[in-house]
């Protein structure tokens, strides 16, 4: 399987990465190289093997339902580009 240039542009758009035509073409080459690795892996017979959701075969640890965090808004917002009335300000977005 190999990708098309159109698919590369679509993935770039979904990831909100602005790429030029030449970057799209070089990225296509890189990604197709990765795909050949995946193809090699997919050639392995995995019948009867349960897929893993994580590379480590251990269970999720849980935390107790307790509030442990205090309000540190001032510290967090000190490094934010712009804030007002306690809100983070971002370029206007309306769906």
């Amino acid at each position: 399987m190999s990708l098309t240039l159109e698919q590369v542009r679509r993935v770039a758009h979904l990831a909100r990465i602005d790429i030029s035509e030449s970057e799209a073409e070089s990225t296509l080459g890189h990604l197709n190289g990765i795909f050949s690795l995946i193809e090699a892996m997919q050639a392995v017979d995995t019948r009867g093997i349960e897929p893993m959701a994580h590379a480590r075969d251990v269970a999720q640890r849980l935390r107790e339902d307790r509030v442990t965090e205090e309000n540190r808004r001032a510290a967090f917002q000190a490094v934010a580009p712009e804030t007002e009335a306690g809100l983070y300000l971002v370029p206007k977005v309306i769906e």
Partner: protein
Amino acid sequence: MNHWEVVIGIETHAQLATRSKIFSGASTAFGAAPNTQACAVDLALPGVLPVLNRGAVECAIRFGLAIGAEIAPKSVFARKNYFYPDLPKGYQISQFELPVVVGGSVAIQVGQGEQVYEKTVHLTRAHLEEDAGKSLHEDFHGKSGIDLNRAGTPLLEIVTEPDMSSSAEAVAYARALHALVRWIGICDGNMQEGSFRCDANVSVRRPGAPLGTRREIKNLNSFRFLQQAIDYEIRWQIETLEDGGRIQQATVLFDPDTGETRVMRTKEDAHDYRYFPDPDLLPLLIPRDWVERTQAALPELPAAKKRRFMADYGLSAYDATTLTASLEIADFYEATVAVAGKAAAKPCANWVMVDLAARLNRDERELADSPVSAAQLGGLVARIADNTISNNIAKKVFEALWNGEGASADEIIEKQGLKQITDSGAIEQLIDEVLAANAAMVAEFKAGKEKAFNALVGQAMKATKGKANPQQVNELLKKKLS
């Protein structure tokens, strides 16, 4: 409308009643000042890692057990990728291929009176996920303001099969689900605050035809809007098809001001979420003994309570369903019966379902802030049962209780002299007076006018200020006139 079939499925986001967020230790309390409950994990600062809240998992297990679903011994968290400023990580942690709750069903009762019927709505799944923050679009110098207090709040997304075929069924399901999540204490159900919101998938088809193309109405936060939005959508789809048009798959929003739905996005620009297992989270394993412990701690569920009400109190299926529509009403009813006595269980049901419900409705009040308590209502029903007062007088006493004119039915009956007159001597004396004062009516009756008899009963009841037993008045009057 006759030759179209409506198909509806519902997705509900129920905010789980935990103290802290699903993957961080920040508080979930509603109404805090912006961003004061958004910690480093919720803000997605570099290097932070999510740690799953045991309380949120416990809520999911409770829910799964309450609907008779399978609790997955192993489930997996996945990243749902999209870009929006109120989602700082660039992805929402959700569950995709392996959700925590699989299957199950909710029994609903649709309609009222003669047309009432029962139906089972099957659930596909329920999964855990985190909520996003809030964007405020009012003017901040041409910018949007972001409040991340809600980011990371635990949600249970509950998905049905396309089992409903009218807005009435959809609303009945939403109400039953709303009552259930509150019943088992996993969600406060506050719809104004967004703790319980529904998306409805609606399509129409000719009977027997394959499923039509669906449109999804997003974010309905009241039962009324749910009903209005679905009704509008059904009408619109049928009209479009009958005019020779085609339905395009789309996500739509309901505008309560116009009562219409409008397209938010079509399939072409639908999100491609690129789900994949979140490498920051290991699989969630739920051992059998955790499920068993949770099962043991569950309260009596609506279906079991309904069966018990029918067996113990001799209630009809309809009454029992109505009285188990929420834990509040079930508790109120049982507290009423506890005071009135089990023998008066049926009149208690009527008073709670009819008189009290109508009065609450008239004042637009909820049962929780009823001015008449269950103990007061039980005391009132007890006085009807032992013939101290008639049903008619009871309505007066109820109104007096409602208006706070006394602490108990007994006190009001005593203070206002409403005790039923059962002493036949006293009633006979009153009847004699009435007969003497209404000689013309007596003559009419004797001349064969049956109607005059009823008028005389009315006069006698008036003379007793309604306190005499009407049946007794009737009999005594007959005796006197024969």
